[in-house]
């Protein structure tokens, strides 16, 4: 029974949008792309990983939006490898990601980027 309460509590906690503890980069993303509802991102010196949840009504084309943002960011930060994902799982994983990014962890995150499957 305890586990049940734990899950419900954590479900609600994680879903509240932390507008306040957002990194400046996230706020900037939200400003430039209005469709984003919740965004989490990891920025290292050579990789930018943006996980987002699109507003409910726009979710029909969430993958297209994620792809556009990826292209856009790719232009803005040419010397960075940019990955975006509109998958809910990506947002959850990024939010859990406290320790610095290992390559293996990064590969797992990249697997959530749907646009990669479409390209190759």
């Amino acid at each position: 029974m305890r586990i049940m309460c734990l899950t419900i509590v954590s479900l609600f906690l994680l879903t509240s949008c932390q507008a306040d503890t957002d990194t400046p980069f996230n706020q900037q993303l939200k400003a430039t792309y209005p469709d984003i509802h919740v965004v989490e991102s990891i920025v290292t010196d050579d990789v930018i990983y943006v996980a987002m949840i699109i507003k409910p009504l726009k979710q029909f084309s969430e993958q297209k939006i994620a792809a556009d943002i990826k292209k856009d960011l790719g232009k803005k930060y040419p010397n960075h490898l940019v990955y975006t994902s509109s998958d809910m799982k990506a947002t959850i994983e990024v939010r859990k990601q406290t320790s610095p990014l290992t390559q293996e962890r990064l590969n797992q995150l990249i697997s959530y980027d749907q646009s990669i499957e479409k390209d190759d």
Partner: protein
Amino acid sequence: MKTDTIKTIAKKHDPKRPLAKNCLMSFIFGGSLCALGQMISLFYLYFFDFSEETVGDPTVATLIILTMFLTGWGVYDKIAQVAGAGTMVPVTGFGNAVISSAIEHRNEGFVLGVGSNMFKLAGSVIVSGVFSSFVIAIIKTLLA
């Protein structure tokens, strides 16, 4: 007496199905089943390594486990009498068709009873699905 006079009289007394109530009930029950499915999906998303694409499979499996218990305890058909399509359209309806046939034909033995009668109801769903998917996939691969 001519057949069509009998038919018109019979038409007059055909009890109208309570359409509004049925639709409302199937909306509520169908919706709550899908909401339950979404919660299960969220649970799997949080605690297991499933992406949003592949989270459907464990959700469906969990729902069918739930159906097995509901069918076994004799509750599912009571709900379905109220819910109508609400409990039939979701995958629990498919699960219930398979599980109720299996339970029903248990007394004829497992091989001949359960084995041969299990898909008597759900078979039509699989056959129509597979055949239509085959046709569509062939057309798509030929065109694209």
